[in-house]
């Protein structure tokens, strides 16, 4: 038998060892960071706080009482982790992005950083954790008691209550020392996590050691153990479907909603890859913890006297076999399970209490600018320490009130059921954007109340809080309000009954009120942020620019984060803005990052409130959002207007450039024409002068004189024609031409034009059938156009066998006549110019005219209500003349 002093000494040494581990890790992590701390292995081991003393001691007791039903408590979490892709991954992603510090912070942050919801969740968590902490105290007390069952004299001074008290005090000190030594911006406790990982290994090894001892040393290997199970009273067991389903569900939900699980899964995580590993490694841990439960229970039932507490088999079986060392190891394993749970739970709960209850109260009580005056850090730390003590005191009170008589598993399940009330608000918040604060608060309150009434208060038993009369007959004798048979449901056992009604009513209220109410803008922003966690880049609401003074913010941050950390953050922010010193511009982005950083220390709601105090702005109001939206709309409108304008400008500029190019070209043409016209005038003038001088000498034979006079005559005709053309053009251009309308057939017109132009060597193709169109127009003028085009073809067609095709088409009262030759056509760049006056292409010395022909054609056609245009892409030079069959234009000028 182990003496009591040795037992206490072992505990103290063990705690001291953990202390040392935590201390060293914390110090090294502070200096340079430790890579393996972020390894998935440490993460998975830290998750093992799910396996508390309830698992370590209680599972065997549970199995001895209800057979395999105990595995539901581990199957639920297995499913939750195997299904990490659904829920846990989203939780971790959101938790990292929003710097969530606790489950109350998550819920409050989701529902518009509402502190009301945060307070409800905190209260719920504290109350529901109380039985659980009591459970740990009870198990440690029981395990001490198991050793006391030996020689009584040395234990005389020891009463169960005193043991529990000492354990509670010791744990408070340990937790305060480690959980609240400093305020981390991420609320992470690397030292504590490492200590817990060590404890996880200890408890797993201890349970495995007892299991292996039982299977291979007490029994004769696995087959013998299976035979013993078959032979024991555990060979048959009853599956109660409602309990089986209800407990699996409850245990699965517990992974998400227990504050301490949330702490290790979300808050203490570093990256998602840890979770990926934990998705199989944690179920494996649970598997290993459960594997030997039934064998230990069976052997315990065999070797221990009837009436022995099955919750202590893990301890008492080795004792009964006189394995003192193994019993000691098992004792330390149980001690580890209990302490690790209490430490993490106390840290998580104290964070919630201080962030959601103490800080908001303090902010409200303290004068408006108190955020600048007092030492916030000190207040946060003190409130956390007091919270830890209070949480443990509550647990101890529950332990004393219930008398420590119940089975461990039953107590644990009460706690699970209470924590599970957060589930609807959490799942709704993560997957449904329509979930509102009112709905969440109502659901939580109703679930909490029903749980208190149907499960928590009756758990005190007897007549302490609920009288036996109420339990049996309902309050005021109303039978359908009996705590264990609400609304006449009597078939379910009390636990499942409570879960059923509390979660049903909770979910109903949550959904109904969410549907009926309208969320605030911050809620809607946060809702979108949470539900679309995987689609969005970080960044939610922005603070109105320029409202917060950087200096005030620095002063406040120093009080929360500590001088060095705050200054480093501010300096870094200033540097990214390209400034020196510690005071960056208070841009919305900066304020946003600062708020996230602060929310890591004091929670989202408090951080929001503090910055609001300094920033002087209110939370984002609908008006703000509208203003922002309006501004954006205006900017967008302006920019689109600018875009249109710049397009218009570009278009105009292009047109101007084109016009300019044309003008320049025209001016060049005009110059060239002046040269040409003077040349054209000069050439006949020169010959006229020369020949007339010869004639004046008068000594010529009459034939010669006659010939010279003929030349002079021809030259004057040429001059006259040139001048006629110019005159004609100016008349046409001014629209002063007189048109003579007459009935004429197109064929006759083309015949006339061909005979007048008489192109030498030009083959003409005609379609006489199509030409049978009778026109009512100015035949002379139209013939002039045709003649011009035909003679141009004769003059300029450079093909070896020049050919001209005349195609006629009539369409909707308009006639189109195409003149297409087989020459090389007109180059593209010249096509725009040929209809201009004085236009000549290249050096066309053989062209007789002055470059006025096509210009005249164009003017004539315009006067006839038609057009003449160059027709590209016909395999040669091609012109299309198009005009109305009936001339109607400008009746006043038509004679």
């Amino acid at each position, binding site marked *: 038998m182990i003496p009591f002093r040795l037992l206490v000494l072992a505990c103290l040494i063990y705690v001291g060892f953990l202390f040392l581990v935590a201390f060293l890790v914390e110090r090294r992590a502070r200096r340079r960071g430790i890579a393996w701390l972020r390894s998935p292995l440490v993460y998975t081991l830290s998750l093992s706080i799910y396996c508390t003393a309830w698992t370590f001691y209680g599972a065997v007791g549970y199995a001895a009482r209800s057979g395999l039903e105990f595995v539901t408590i581990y199957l639920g979490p297995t499913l939750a982790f195997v*299904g990490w892709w659904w829920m846990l991954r989203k939780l971790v992603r959101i938790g990292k992005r929003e710097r969530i510090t606790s489950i109350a912070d998550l819920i409050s942050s989701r529902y518009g950083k509402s502190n009301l919801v945060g307070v409800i969740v905190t209260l719920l968590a504290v109350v529901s954790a109380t039985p659980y902490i009591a459970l740990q105290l009870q198990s440690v007390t029981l395990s001490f008691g198991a050793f006391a069952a030996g020689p009584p004299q040395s234990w005389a001074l020891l009463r169960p209550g005193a043991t529990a008290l000492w354990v509670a005090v010791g744990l408070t000190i340990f937790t305060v020392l480690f959980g609240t030594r400093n305020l981390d911006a991420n609320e992470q406790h690397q030292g504590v996590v490492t200590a817990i990982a060590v404890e996880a290994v200890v408890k797993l090894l201890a349970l495995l050691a007892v299991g292996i001892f039982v299977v291979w040393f007490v029994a004769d290997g696995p087959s013998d153990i299976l035979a013993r199970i078959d032979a024991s009273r555990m060979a048959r067991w009853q599956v109660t479907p409602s309990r089986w389903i209800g407990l699996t569900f409850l245990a699965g939900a517990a992974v998400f909603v227990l504050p301490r699980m949330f702490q290790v899964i979300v808050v203490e995580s570093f990256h998602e890859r840890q979770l990926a590993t934990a998705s199989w490694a944690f179920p494996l841990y649970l598997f290993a913890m459960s594997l030997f439960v039934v064998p230990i229970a069976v052997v315990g039932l065999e070797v221990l006297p009837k009436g022995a507490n099955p919750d202590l088999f893990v301890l008492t079986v080795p004792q009964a076999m006189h394995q003192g060392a193994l019993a000691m190891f098992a004792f330390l394993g149980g001690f580890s399970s209990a302490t690790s749970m209490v430490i993490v739970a106390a840290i998580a709960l104290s964070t919630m209490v201080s962030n959601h209850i103490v800080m908001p109260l303090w902010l409200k009580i303290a004068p408006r600018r108190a955020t600048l005056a007092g030492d916030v850090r000190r207040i946060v730390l003190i409130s956390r320490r007091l919270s830890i003590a209070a949480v443990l005191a509550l647990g101890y009170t529950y332990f004393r009130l219930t008398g420590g008589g119940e089975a461990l598993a039953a107590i644990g399940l009460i706690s699970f059921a209470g924590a599970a009330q957060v589930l609807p608000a959490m799942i709704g918040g993560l997957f449904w954007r329509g979930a509102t604060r009112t709905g969440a608060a109502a659901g939580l309150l109703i679930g909490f109340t029903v749980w208190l009434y149907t499960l928590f208060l009756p758990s005190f038993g007897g007549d302490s809080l609920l009288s036996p009369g109420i339990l049996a007959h309902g309050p005021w004798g109303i039978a359908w309000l009996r705590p264990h048979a609400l609304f006449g449901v009597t078939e379910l056992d009390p636990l499942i009954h409570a879960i059923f009604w509390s979660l049903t009513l909770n979910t109903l209220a949550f959904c109904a009120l969410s549907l009926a109410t309208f969320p605030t803008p911050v809620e809607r922003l946060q809702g979108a942020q949470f539900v679309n966690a995987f689609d969005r880049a970080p960044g939610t609401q922005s603070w109105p620019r320029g409202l917060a003074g950087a200096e005030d913010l620095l002063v406040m941050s120093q009080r929360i984060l500590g001088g060095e950390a705050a200054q480093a953050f501010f300096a870094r922010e200033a540097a990214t803005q390209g400034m020196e010193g510690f005071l960056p511009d208070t841009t919305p982005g900066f304020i946003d990052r600062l708020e996230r950083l602060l929310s890591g220390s004091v929670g989202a709601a408090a951080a929001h409130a503090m910055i609001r105090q300094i920033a002087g702005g209110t939370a984002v109001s609908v008006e703000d959002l509208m203003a922002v939206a309006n501004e954006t709309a205006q900017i967008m409108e302006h920019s689109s207007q600018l875009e249109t304008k710049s397009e218009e400008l570009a278009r105009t500029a292009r047109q101007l450039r084109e016009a300019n190019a044309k003008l320049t070209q025209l001016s060049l043409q005009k110059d060239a024409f002046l040269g040409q016209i003077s040349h054209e005038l000069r050439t006949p003038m020169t010959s006229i002068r020369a020949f007339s001088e010869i004639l004046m000498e008068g000594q010529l034979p009459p034939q010669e004189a006659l010939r010279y006079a003929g030349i002079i005559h021809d030259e004057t005709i040429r001059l006259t024609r040139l001048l006629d053309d110019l005159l004609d053009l100016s008349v046409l251009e001014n629209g002063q031409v007189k048109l003579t309308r007459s009935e004429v057939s197109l064929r006759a017109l083309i015949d006339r034009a061909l005979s007048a132009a008489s192109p030498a060597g030009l083959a003409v193709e005609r379609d006489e059938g199509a030409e049978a169109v009778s026109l009512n127009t100015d035949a002379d003028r139209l013939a002039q156009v045709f003649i011009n085009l035909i003679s141009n073809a004769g003059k300029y067609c450079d093909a070896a066998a020049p050919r001209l095709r005349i195609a006629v088409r009539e369409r909707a009262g308009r006639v189109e006549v195409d003149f297409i030759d087989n020459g090389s056509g007109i180059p593209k760049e010249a096509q725009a110019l040929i209809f201009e006056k004085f236009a000549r292409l290249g050096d066309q010395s053989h062209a007789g005219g002055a470059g006025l022909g096509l210009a005249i054609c164009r003017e004539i056609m315009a006067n006839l209500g038609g057009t003449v245009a160059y027709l590209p892409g016909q395999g040669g030079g091609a012109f299309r003349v198009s005009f109305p069959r009936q001339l109607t234009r400008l009746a006043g000028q038509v004679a």
Partner: protein
Amino acid sequence: MPQGRPLFLARQSYRLRRLMDAARLLPVLGLFLFLVPVLWGPPSSHSTVTDGIYLFFVWLVLIVCAFLLSRALGPATETPEEDEEK
């Protein structure tokens, strides 16, 4: 934001999507297998030993499947962030 996503995927990303589907389906399968005991009826019709072997076997299979999936899906998780405070 469906308009931003392509309608069809290359073979590799298609495989990854189906692996994600498998990760989502695995807990459903597990739930189904774990709920089978509800149908087992009165204690006389089944024994603790066979039931225990069934449950622990299913448990182990789930763990192995989760292990394979988590290895395949590891690259799809968010890359570790550098701690801003250090």
